[in-house]
């Protein structure tokens, strides 16, 4: 490449700083959104993995049980009957500490004598504390030094904690010091106790959460595992530690993918921005490029020149994007973590992880996206014959000729997208590929739709605004190379906004209706929960009876929620003692209500929620296998009910059946049904009084619980709303730049009009009419496109991600907003050029060419 050509290119770019800034902003914003989401997700995953791995230590396998955990005696069986000593018991649970608001502490109950081969950092020496203190002094615990500092406690102090609403105290016997950064993050929020004390604290006397094993690889290991399996009681099984961690992380797979797909949208909008800027820069230089071609610069050299410029912009934009991404990631990680905590598992993310892969991925995406977006402009610059490049009309001719081809391609992409959706697959990436095909198809159909709309609007505008109206309408079509990408970008941005808006409102409406039906009891009582949708705490058994005896209470439904790992991965089982009025809470997707409840009550049959049935291909008549205290048991499915509480799904079992198979008398929460005319306020007050001094409980009226549930919903969609906003901002900047470029490019034409007597006001009118018309066209196309996107997201993407059936709820408000947004956005984009043009003396504008 000729150095002089490079110099020429560099001078052109530095001579147009505004364009460079827009391009860089486009790439940077796109990359920043993708990287920030990636970092936020990775950080949650890393935090989860580090804490899981720290706690798993060097264990190779873990023996897991069912809902009630594992009886104490299993450890003795492994050690004595199977003759294997490298086994360590573990009790785990979560407590909250008032001095560490919003940060659940993970209780780790261990046997200090078994710990050395598993978690050497806890087994004396390295921890810098005498672990034997844990054994000899009642109520003692070890805490990470950093966490202790944050909780303002020191060794010897008492840390107040709450377990399922009950106040407890732990004496901090020593502080854990980390040797490296990874361990530091691993032991954060960890409260280490002797196993028996942890059992007492968490109310799990005689039960272990799991038993860690360390077995060698290969045949000797297999032989040991077989030996252990032989002595394990029914309902318990050894699983590989790594597999277990993966299973837990798989829970957020669909959530991650949805966020990533949304973040990619921002990158696509960024690509529109690059496309616009690069096309504009080529259009601006058409004379220059024509001259170069006439002087003997080959097409390939021109291509390399334009692509080289794009590469430079891409690299700078990506670098800026990575930096902004880290800053944005710090903001988003809180939102992502909160949603994961609300929906999946407890994870506390202290800081943003910065894995090099995330930066590499972001860099590649940024640079490749920039080059792809610049390719049409580069081809535009090179494909025309040398002299033809000199004329603007050739560019427009080509653009007009490309309209039917683009439309055909767009229609083809839509068909392809539809075809992909119709495939009998549950693949989420495939669904997103289909969704992107449809969105891209819409963008490609936008120019044709614009031409048609302008043909219809043209005569109307002529009649209303005379020659200015005619010029405004015609200008949209005569400068199609510039207007089409801008309109396409606006259509995509607004339709995505509409699509996401409709999806969120449909979700909200479905949830609201479901809550109306589900919350049948009048008053709900539960211990304070650490995870919003995963009630697992325990109510004091005496309290349940007290609540039931409250004046005005007609009946009680009790609810026992447990989470354990079974063949289905992380499984949620709920044991229900249902007051008859509570049956109305269930709306069945499969199975008849009366029949399903008859079989549910008579025992041995379960109800499963829609997501659970969808994930595991279950229906009425199929069976679920669960690890009961008496061994693996099969339970037939009596019905599939709608449930929006968990995307992992839930199995409902009658309390009688549960008690028959598991020795777990705990109750997690109760629903109180009032007598006819009963006052919930009075009952709530009575319940609070009866729990005083025994356990801190959350007592909520039907309405309050409904509101709290919707609040959680709003929280979980906060990240989606933020991404929707970010994507729209990127798209809006793209549209703004395209429209501004278009109007600024017309400086000379407007100068001629001014010279011929057009007033600044008329220029303003002309520019505003044109951009307004483009906004209107984009809005009118975006509304149906957005609804179509919503349909796909609701009925396909959501179904495949979470297994929920949602009602489509298209509120006219969202559609009107979208139209207004498109027109207002476009008008706003026309403001600067209109203002500039109306103030530029005609002579100057004429000289500017």
């Amino acid at each position, binding site marked *: 490449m000729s150095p002089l050509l490079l110099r020429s290119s560099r001078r052109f770019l530095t001579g147009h700083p505004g364009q460079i800034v827009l391009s860089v902003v486009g790439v940077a914003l796109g990359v920043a959104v993708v990287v920030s989401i990636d970092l936020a997700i990775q950080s949650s995953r890393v935090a989860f993995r580090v804490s899981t791995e720290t706690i798993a230590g060097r264990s190779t396998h873990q023996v897991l049980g069912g809902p009630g955990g594992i009886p104490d005696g299993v450890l003795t069986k492994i050690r004595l009957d199977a003759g294997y000593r490298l086994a360590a018991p573990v009790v785990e649970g979560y407590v909250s500490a008032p001095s560490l608001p919003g940060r659940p502490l993970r209780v780790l109950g261990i046997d200090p004598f078994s710990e050395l081969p598993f978690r050497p950092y806890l087994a004396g020496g390295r921890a810098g504390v005498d672990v034997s203190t844990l054994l000899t002094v009642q109520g003692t615990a070890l805490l990470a030094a950093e966490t202790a500092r944050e909780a303002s406690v020191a060794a010897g102090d008492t840390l107040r904690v709450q377990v399922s609403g009950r106040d407890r105290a732990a004496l901090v016997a020593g502080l854990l010091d980390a040797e490296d950064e990874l361990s530091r993050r691993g032991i954060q929020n960890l409260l280490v106790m002797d196993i028996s004390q942890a059992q007492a604290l968490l109310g799990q006397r005689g039960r272990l959460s799991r038993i860690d094993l360390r077995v060698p690889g290969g045949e000797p290991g297999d032989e040991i595992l077989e030996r252990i399996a032989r002595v394990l009681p029914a309902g318990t099984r050894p699983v590989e530690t790594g597999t277990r961690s993966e299973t837990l992380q798989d829970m957020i797979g669909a959530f991650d993918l949805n966020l990533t797909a949304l973040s990619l949208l921002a990158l696509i909008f960024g690509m529109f921005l690059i496309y616009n800027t690069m096309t504009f820069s080529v259009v601006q230089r058409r004379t220059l490029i024509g001259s170069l071609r006439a002087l003997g610069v080959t*097409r390939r050299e021109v291509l390399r020149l334009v692509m080289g410029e794009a590469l430079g912009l891409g690299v700078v934009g990506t670098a800026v994007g990575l930096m902004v991404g880290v800053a944005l990631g710090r903001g988003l990680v809180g939102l992502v973590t909160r949603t994961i905590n609300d929906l999946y598992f407890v994870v506390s993310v202290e800081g943003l992880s910065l894995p090099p892969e995330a930066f590499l991925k972001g860099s590649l995406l940024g640079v490749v996206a920039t080059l792809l977006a610049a390719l049409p402009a580069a081809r535009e610059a090179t494909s025309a014959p*040398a002299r033809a490049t000199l004329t603007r009309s050739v560019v427009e001719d080509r653009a007009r000729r490309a309209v039917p081809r683009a439309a055909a391609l767009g229609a083809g992409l839509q068909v392809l997208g539809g075809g992909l959706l119709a495939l009998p697959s549950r693949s989420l990436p495939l669904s997103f590929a289909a969704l992107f095909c449809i969105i891209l198809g819409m963008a490609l159909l936008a120019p044709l739709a614009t031409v048609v709309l302008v043909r219809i609007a043209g005569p109307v505008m002529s009649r209303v605004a005379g020659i200015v109206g005619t010029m405004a309408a015609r200008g949209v079509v005569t400068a199609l190379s510039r207007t089409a990408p801008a309109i396409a970008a606006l259509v995509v941005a607004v339709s995505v906004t509409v699509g996401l808006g409709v999806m969120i409102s449909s979700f909200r409406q479905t949830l609201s209706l479901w809550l109306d039906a589900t919350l049948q009891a009048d008053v709900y009582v539960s211990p304070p929960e650490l995870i919003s949708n995963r009630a697992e705490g325990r109510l004091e058994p005496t309290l349940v009876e007290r609540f039931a005896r409250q004046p005005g209470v007609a009946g009680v439904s009790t609810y026992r929620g447990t989470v354990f790992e079974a063949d289905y991965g992380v499984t949620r089982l709920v044991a229900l003692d249902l007051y008859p009025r509570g049956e109305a809470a269930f709306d069945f997707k499969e199975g008849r209500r009366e029949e399903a409840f008859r079989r549910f009550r008579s025992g041995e049959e379960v109800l499963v929620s829609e997501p659970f049935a969808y994930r595991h291909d279950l229906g009425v008549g199929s069976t679920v296998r669960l690890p009961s205290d008496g061994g693996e048991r099969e339970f037939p499915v009596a019905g599939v009910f709608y449930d929006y509480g968990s995307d992992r799904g839930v199995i409902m079992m009658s309390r009688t059946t549960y008690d028959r198979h598991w020795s777990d008398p705990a109750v997690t929460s109760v629903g109180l049904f009032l007598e006819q005319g009963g006052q919930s306020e009075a009952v709530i007050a009575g319940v609070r009084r009866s729990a005083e001094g025994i356990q801190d409980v959350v007592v909520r009226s039907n309405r309050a619980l409904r509101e709290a549930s919707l609040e959680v919903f709003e929280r979980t969609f906060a990240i989606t709303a933020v991404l929707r906003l970010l994507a729209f901002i990127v798209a809006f900047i793209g549209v703004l730049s395209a429209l501004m470029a278009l109007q600024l490019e017309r400086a000379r034409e407007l100068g001629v009009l001014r010279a011929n007597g057009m007033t600044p006001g008329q220029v303003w009118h002309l520019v505003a009419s044109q951009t307004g018309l483009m906004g209107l066209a984009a809005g009118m196309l975006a509304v149906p496109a957005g609804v179509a996107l919503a349909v796909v997201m609701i009925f396909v993407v959501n179904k495949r991600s979470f297994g929920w059936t949602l009602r489509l709820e298209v509120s006219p408000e969202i559609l009107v907003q979208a139209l207004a947004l498109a027109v207002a956005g476009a008008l706003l984009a026309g403001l600067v050029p209109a203002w500039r043009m109306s103030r530029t003396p005609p002579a100057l504008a004429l000289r500017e060419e």
Partner: protein
Amino acid sequence: MRHTVEEQPPAPDSGNPPRPLIRLEGLSKVYWEGGREHVVLGDLNAEIHEGEFVALLGPSGSGKSTLLNLISGIDAPSGGRVVIDGLSLTELSERERTLFRRRHIGFVFQFFNLIPTLTVEENLLLPIELKRRLSKEDHRRASELLDAVGLCDRAQTYPDRLSGGEQQRVAVARAIAHDPRLILADEPTGNLDERTGLQVFDLLERLVRSAGKTLLVVTHSRVLAARADRILTIHDGRLEAAQHPIAS
């Protein structure tokens, strides 16, 4: 014999009668407009000799610029051939024609078409650099040419700071900077006032003749055309009998 575009065509043999540098054989160019055929050039035959100065006269829209585009290889004919020094441009690929142009043809446009992002000196150096790496000698040659066109003090100036006449003088210097065998000028004075146009034309003629180059000038001016060795007239896409300019 066909030589490649990379090679310098053989120098003319002074012992023999001048052989044609450019040969147009049944050249035609047709455009399709709205499904109808529009013949811009039809069955053109002509020869232009090495070192000859030929003026191409004709009314607007007669096909003069199209012919120039065909001769330079910028455009491809619909029929016939353009043969330059035995090399048929018609048979070359677009890339080969571009490389041929960068080596053997210099251009002067009506609207100057200097590269606005390069200085005056760099504009002169660009055609040379497209052929090969620049040497000190090339910089010296650029200075000499700028001196010859009276702009040696404006070497580091950008084109937009120059008047129209000055810009066209730079364009003339650029056209011969890389030592092409053929210079094509498309209405080089069309955008200049009469006096300035005359000065530029003088310069072009002087430089081209002194360097022994072949010059084909498209012009509307019979006065300027009269200074050519030969005039070709084009009318409705057809070349009319070549005439010697003495008559004007």
